[in-house]
Each structure stands twice: as C-alpha cells, then as structure tokens.
C-alpha cells in the first residue's frame, strides 16, 4: 500500500514540492492537499500584473483543478477546509468542516501572513492586505467606483500594489515610515530615482509618515487615514503592505517548535520527524524567506527526502530582487550599502535615469543596486555568488559584460525594447515573442525549462543572458535564477571541483565508481556528465587506462567530426600550418580515391576532407599515415592547431622564426586532451598576422623575445587575450605554454574554454601560478610533459593499422 502524504497549504511552495516529488517518485504516496483558497494553484508572484491588468487569472494559474485529478491528488480547497487541528500521535489532520485524514508524512506549506500594523481602525471595511486573489478582487472592485487609495508600506509589495491601483485609475498615495523607498533593497540614491519615476507616473508619497489611526463612517467603512502630525487624507481603500510574517499558527497549535518561523533542519524537517515544512512559513538557520528562488531550492531538497533518497541539503544562497513595475528597471542584491571595510564603485547618469552601484570587499562583489539599466544585474549577481575576484576588471565593471562582443545577435544587450519578432537565439531561430509566450503559456520558471521547450540558448549558449532577461521580465521580478550551473548536470548536485576532488582523494578510476561514490541520481549518468568525468579521470590518472570510449562524444570516439548527414570529416595534422608538396599530393590522392565531395581550407591552416563515409575512415587514415601524417584532432576537446605566420625566415618584417616556434609548440602539445578545444598561434612580429591575440595561447614575437598571451577567443564571444608576460627564449615559451596548458587541464571545467576560465579564476591568479612562482610553473610543466608521454599516440594509426575499435567502422551484419 502507498504511504500517505498530506500537504497543508496549496500555494507555490507546497505544490512545487509535490511536482518535484512526482518527478522522482510518482508512485510513492497517496497525496492529499488542503488549501484555504477555492482555486487550484496559482503564481502568487503574478498578483501584481493581475492587479494592473497585464495578466488574467487563467494566465497566472500554475495547476488548475484538472491537474490534481490527473495526478491522483485529492484537493480539499476552500475556507471550510482550513486545517484546525492535527493529532501528531495518531497522525490525523482535521479540517474545520470535519474532514479527517491520516498521514505517514506531513508537509506544512502554510506560507505567510501580512503584517497588519496595530492601529485603531485596522479592522474597518476596505482595509485589506495584498496576499491573494481575494485581495486583488476587492481592489479591482474598489477601483471601479472609488477614487482614493492609500497603500501603507513603500516596499516591494506596496509599490507593486500602488502601481496596479494607479493603473486601474485610482488616486494612490503611498505611506512609508522612513525616507527611503524599498529600504530593504535600495540605497538613498536609487530610492530617489525610483520615487521620481513613480511620482512622474502619478503616484503620491508621504515619506517619514507614521499612521496614528484609520477613520471610518457609520457603516464601518474606512474613510480616511490620520498621521501623527494630525494631517488626514481621504481613503476609500487602504492596502496594508508593511511586510509579511511566517504563518506559524497551526504549527504552534500542534506544539511544533517555532521561533520567527517553523524551525527546520537542512533537510526541511521540523522537530517532528514525520513533519516537513517549506516556504515562507519556515525558519532555516535563523533565516526566513519571502522570495521564490530559495523556495524552489527547498522544494527540490524536500521532495528528495520525502521520496526517501535522503540526499541533498538545503543551503541558503544570496538572492536578488527586481521590481515588477512596468517601465521601472531596478535590481538589488546582497549587501548594497556596504560599510567602512568595503568599497563602492558608482556610476550615475541622471539625464538617462541610470544609477549603478557595486559594493566590493577584498575585490569581490558583496552587493549591488542598479536603477534604470539592470542588464548586468545577473552578471554581477553571478560574480557575487561565485565569489569571483573582479580585481582585473574593476576598470570596466560598471560598463557591463557587453564590453565583450557577442556574435550572432547584432551586439544586442537589452531585450526590453525589442519587437516580438526580434531573433534572440541565432542558432535555432527563436524570436523574442516565441520565448515570452512559451514562458507564460507553459509556466516556465528556469533557464533549463526555456531551453527544453523553445530551444533558445540550447545550442551555443551565447544568447543565454538575453533569454535570462526575458525570463526575469516575464516570470516576474522577484524571481531570479542565475546561470550558476555549479552542478555538473542534472544527474548530481555536485559541482565540477567536488567531482575532481573525489576522483583524486578516493582514487576513483571509472565513471561508475564516481557515480556510485557520489550517489548519482542516474547511475549511468548522461551525455553531459559522462564525457566530463571521463576527461577528469584521464587528466587525473594519465598513465592508467581509464579512458572509456563509450563515455566519449562521437567525434572523439570516431576520431573524426560527424556531419549533418552522418558522414565524417578528416583533417590531418599540418604542423604549424607548414606542409610539403608530398603531403599535399597524398591528401589529393586520398580525396580522389575516396570520392571526397569537398576539400576545404580551415581557419586553423589545415585541410579538411568533408563527407567521408564511416566505413572508409580507417582506409583513408591508412593512406594519410603512410604519407607521414597523423590525426589533426580537429574533432576533439584537445589541442587543435598552432597557427603561424611566415616569420623571420621569409618575411621582411619578421623578428623571430615564428613558424619554427609554432611547429615546436605543436609537437609538444599535440595529442593532449583538454577541458575544451585549445588553439595556439604564433606571430612573427607585432603585426600579428597569425591573430595570436584571439587564441587560447598566443605568442607574439618582438625583437627582444616573445610576448605570451592567454585566454583569447575568436568565436561566440570575441575576447582579446590577456598579456601574461614576456620571455626571451623559445625554451621559455615552451615551459610557460606547457605550464598554462596543464593548469587549465587541471582546473578548467569540462566544456569551459580558456577565455571564460581565465575570467572565472582571474588573470592575477594565473599569473601568480605561472609567472611569479617558478617552482609551481616547473611542476605544471613537468606534469604536462609526463601526461604527454601517454597521450601522444596517433589514434588514426591505432585504428587504421592496429585494429583498435574495429567494430566501430563495420556493420554487425547485412540483412538483404
């Protein structure tokens, strides 16, 4: 028989937990839900747009009544289903109307209650809060035939209510007890910008104002608000939006330990082990919650424990806030005020209505407030959550992430003013309108959801920032998911570093040892974590046979690039881009012999034979091998090419022999597997014809030696490389480049190119390891050369002449 789970509270937190639970253990429980509101489950964040008329009730429903039926959930909805009593010993829940249900596990998701300021008149008719659909209905009714609205509270909720009522045609005055609007999220300057903007929209303010009472008429309806200064204002409706308090009433009645909220541990369990609690009603490590992002995290953890998997701990993370008032753009996160030990970088442009402030401590972002231009909010937030040092980009920080150009989106950075037919995802041809309507129609909340449904940002990922903006703007302000994809993939909650440490510390030697030890949700992993972990294994144990071809992406398994028609491309290595007539003849002969439909020169100074059939691969490789050529690894997360210019041997400007340098570097680095592809270039003079400053490792010859550059990229995000240092000899070039390769190999995340890696760890750190610390550099270099001993084996020769993986290229049988 199934166990019985009862959920008290039919709000977002409770139902999200149920959804997560159904995903991982659909048959474990008979689920019963008690909710006081007579609806299905709706998106409470969307009450503001519902009030302002930008959304309809249907649009904000997450799960309608049919959903409960389909999923075999018993829903007791309505005021009479208020849960009055719980018998914890016998494990029964009793509702007001006498409904009695037994439980094995109980989930409390009772949410929060608005804080009603204790003034005379607070119980008059027309004095309401802003928490549910019923409140919105009262406001909408008032807006039809009443004129004056007072909103008490100039915080996030209060301003959204004021905006909504004003849009519905009422005269709105916001009453706030201090002089800074949204003082929990904004500093004085940003609050002033906001106040000006809202005043411009027609909302009035009474700042520093304390309410002494609310006055009413003979019918008990509110008529005015009176301040302690004696001033009164006419009021037909008063909205109390002075904050929320965790709703612990039921929990306290049944004797569960509560402080400000229901106290839970890291698994969302209360002091009664059969009872879990989640959402705005809880208190976790002293903290209470009001925004949706942490609650989503809680739902995941809680569902996992309810399902009996017993893994996952809830850790509270920093959250950010955005205001959902059309035309007002503001963002706030972390410690935005700072103190004597922190520094503030501020940008102000009153003419454009733009204010940006980032607070730093020890060169790390600890908070930020943005007004008017919030495009970079999620970037700052990510830097803050990742604890990234911004020492190397302080000079550009406030100008935003778009200082690096993105390809494929015409340099667009802001989505707000784009028309619906503006193409956001250039890979998959997805327009703004498609994304926005998918988000509202399919109730998408996370970037992964949007990727799955629309395919936007699901290919190269360069439009991720834009898609996130659309998600924020559409789902609503106080929701903020930053692409802090710390976990390797959905199979595990562990991040790349944790996995690598486990491999080293526990001497794990295969994917399944890793997935067993770290208790992966899918024992076989998926197409994301399998190649990643395979790489980490072979980086950690270079001289052991840990490489598993079945965890390799097809290209690295077949040693050729798969094409759209399932043929392959063959790119022989051409050292430093320098070839010979004999090599060219051999390539031409092979192209003729195997009917290669297209012969193309690549950007990396190689020759690409496109359209080779799978079964022909070993034979064409054999021919190329016989002419002295080896695999060019154009298919791998590996050293791809070392591009060179002519250099001093022929060029009248050349200062050093760049081709010779390039060929030597390629001989040293070829065959190495890396977290993502790696490209080198060597230029013979500062004219830089080999374009060395947009390569992962670039070498530029000058008269007195070689300049070394790292972290460049010419693809998705053009990034000019950073200057690492200058060296005198070609031996040093090799040592520094080998050390850099090894450092990246050991510390870069799988699929993370050197450009984002250098940005993530900071150039200063790379310099401190490679340039300043000679011992460290030599140790990296030695480890690199050691691993190369085992890596420099031509995979083509193994397959063409030694029968390795022969079955890959021939059919099992032919049925005719």
């Amino acid at each position, binding site marked *: 028989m199934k166990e019985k789970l009862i959920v008290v509270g039919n709000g977002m937190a409770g139902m999200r937990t149920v959804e997560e639970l159904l995903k991982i253990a659909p048959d474990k429980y008979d689920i019963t839900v008690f909710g006081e509101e007579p609806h299905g489950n709706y998106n409470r964040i969307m009450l503001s747009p519902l009030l302002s008329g930008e959304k309809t009730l249907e649009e904000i429903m997450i799960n309608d009544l049919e959903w409960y039926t389909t999923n075999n959930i018993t829903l007791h909805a309505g005021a009479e289903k208020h849960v009055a009593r719980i018998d914890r010993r016998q494990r029964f829940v009793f509702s007001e109307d006498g409904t009695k249900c037994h439980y094995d596990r109980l989930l409390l998701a009772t949410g929060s209650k608005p804080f009603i300021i204790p003034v005379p008149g607070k119980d008059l008719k027309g004095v309401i809060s802003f928490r549910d659909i019923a409140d919105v209905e009262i406001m909408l009714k008032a807006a039809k035939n009443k004129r004056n609205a007072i909103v008490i509270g100039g915080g996030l909720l209060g301003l959204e209510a004021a905006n909504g009522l004003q849009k519905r045609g009422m005269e709105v005055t916001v009453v706030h007890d201090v002089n800074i609007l949204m003082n929990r999220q904004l500093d004085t300057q940003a609050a002033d910008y906001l106040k000006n903007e809202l005043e411009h929209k027609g909302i009035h303010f009474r700042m520093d104002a304390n309410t002494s009472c609310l006055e009413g008429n003979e019918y008990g309806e509110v008529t005015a608000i009176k301040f302690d200064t004696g001033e009164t204002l006419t009021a037909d409706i008063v909205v109390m939006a002075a904050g929320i308090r965790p709703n612990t009433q039921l929990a306290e009645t049944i004797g569960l330990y509560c402080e400000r909220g229901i106290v839970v541990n890291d698994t969302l369990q209360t002091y009664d082990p059969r009872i879990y609690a989640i959402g705005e009603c809880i208190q976790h490590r002293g903290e209470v919650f009001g925004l949706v992002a942490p609650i989503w995290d809680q739902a995941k953890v809680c569902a996992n424990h309810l399902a009996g998997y017993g893994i996952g701990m809830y850790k509270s993370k920093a959250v950010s806030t955005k205001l959902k008032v059309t035309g007002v753009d503001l963002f706030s996160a972390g410690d935005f005020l700072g103190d004597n030990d922190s520094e503030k970088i501020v940008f102000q442009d009153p003419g454009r209505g733009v204010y940006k402030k980032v607070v730093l401590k020890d060169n790390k972002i600890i908070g930020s407030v943005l007004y008017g231009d919030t495009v970079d909010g999620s970037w700052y937030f990510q830097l803050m959550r990742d604890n990234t040092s911004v020492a190397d980009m302080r000079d550009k920080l406030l100008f935003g992430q778009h200082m690096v150009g993105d390809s494929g989106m015409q340099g667009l950075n802001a989505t707000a003013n784009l028309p619906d037919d503006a193409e956001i995802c250039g890979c998959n041809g997805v327009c703004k309108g498609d994304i926005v309507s998918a988000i509202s129609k399919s109730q998408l909340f996370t970037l992964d959801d949007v990727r*799955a*449904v629309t395919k936007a940002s699901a*290919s190269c990922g360069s439009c991720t920032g834009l898609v996130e903006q659309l998600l924020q703007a559409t789902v609503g302000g106080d929701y903020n998911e930053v692409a802090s994809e710390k976990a390797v993939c959905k199979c595990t909650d562990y991040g790349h570093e944790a996995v690598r440490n486990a491999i080293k510390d526990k001497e794990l030697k295969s994917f399944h040892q890793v997935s067993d030890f770290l208790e992966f949700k*899918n*024992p*076989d*992993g*998926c*197409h994301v974590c*399998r*190649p990643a972990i395979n790489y980490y294994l072979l980086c950690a144990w270079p001289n052991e046979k840990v490489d598993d071809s*079945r*965890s*390799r*992406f*097809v*290209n690295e*398994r*077949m040693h050729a690039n*798969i094409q*759209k*028609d*399932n043929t392959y491309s063959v790119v022989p290595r051409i050292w430093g881009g320098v070839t010979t007539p004999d090599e060219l003849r051999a390539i031409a002969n092979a192209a003729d012999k195997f009917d290669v439909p297209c012969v193309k020169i690549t950007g990396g100074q190689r020759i690409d034979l496109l359209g080779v059939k799978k079964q022909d691969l070993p034979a064409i490789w054999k021919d190329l091998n016989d002419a002295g050529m080896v695999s060019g690894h154009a298919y791998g997360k590996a050293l791809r090419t070392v591009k060179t210019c002519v250099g001093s041997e022929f060029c009248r400007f050349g200062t050093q022999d760049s081709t010779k340098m390039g060929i030597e570097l390629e001989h040293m680095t070829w065959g190495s597997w890396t977290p993502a592809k790696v490209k080198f270039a060597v230029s013979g003079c500062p004219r830089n014809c080999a374009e060395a400053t947009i390569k992962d490792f670039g070498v530029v010859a000058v008269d007195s030696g070689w300049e070394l550059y790292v972290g460049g990229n010419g693809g998705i995000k053009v990034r000019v490389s950073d200057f690492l240092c200058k060296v005198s000899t070609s031996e040093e070039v090799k040592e520094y480049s080998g050390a850099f390769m090894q450092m990246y190999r050991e510390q870069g995340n799988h699929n993370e190119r050197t450009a984002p890696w250098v940005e993530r760890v900071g150039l200063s750190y790379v310099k401190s390891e490679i340039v300043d610390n000679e011992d460290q550099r030599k140790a990296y270099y030695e480890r690199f050369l050691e691993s190369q001993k085992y890596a420099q084996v031509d995979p083509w020769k193994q397959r063409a002449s030694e029968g390795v993986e022969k*079955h890959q290229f021939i*059919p*099992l*049988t*032919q*049925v*005719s």
Partner: protein
Amino acid sequence: MEPEIEKIMNQWIEVGHVDDVPRLGSRVVSSPFGDIAIFKTKDNQLFALRDKCPHKGGALSQGIIHGHKVTCPLHNWVISLLDGEAQGFDEGCTTTYQVKTDGSLIYLALSETAEASQTAAT
C-alpha cells in the same frame, strides 16, 4: 509487398553474437529498410531501433547510451530505447524492432514492434 521482403519481416533473423555488441555501445545492422542500431545497455539488455533520430536523422548508434536511453550525436535529443520516443519536451519517435537472444546469438525481427510484440509474447 514483395513476398521476399514479407518473408524477411516475419521471421527472426540471426544478426550476430551477443559479445559483438559492446556494453553501453551499439552495432549497426544494414537492412533493406535502412540501418538498424542494436544497443546494449549497462544491464546487458539489448534494444533495436532504426538508426535515425526523429529530429534530423542523426545516427543514434553513435550516441552516448545511459540508462535505457541514447543521446543523439547531432543535437542531443534523448531517445528512449524502450519505445523510441523523444524525451523531455522534444516530440518525435523512432521505429523500434524486436530483438531477442537465444544462447549467445542475437536475433532481430524486422516487423515493427507493434505487431511483433504479439508474437514475441507467445
């Protein structure tokens, strides 16, 4: 339908030895109806699917196998080996075929699963 083809479709055809298909790997059987991929999962179960992703025709035999699923190498669609259905929000289906072992030999039935499952059950 040609009587010859009909004959092929209604019989179990021996296609190879179980050890010919590597674990978490696949092999391809060429047939008059196109390539058919035989997959072997971690738990040593065999599955047969048309070697063509319902999305853009990628060779599923070249994908990474995980659980009872395979990820297409072209655009990362995840296809169920059980029924050929695309997973997640993707929509599409690849034909599945009946496959069985007798001793150490693998047999394949070229009639599509829907009909074949009847005979296989008996």
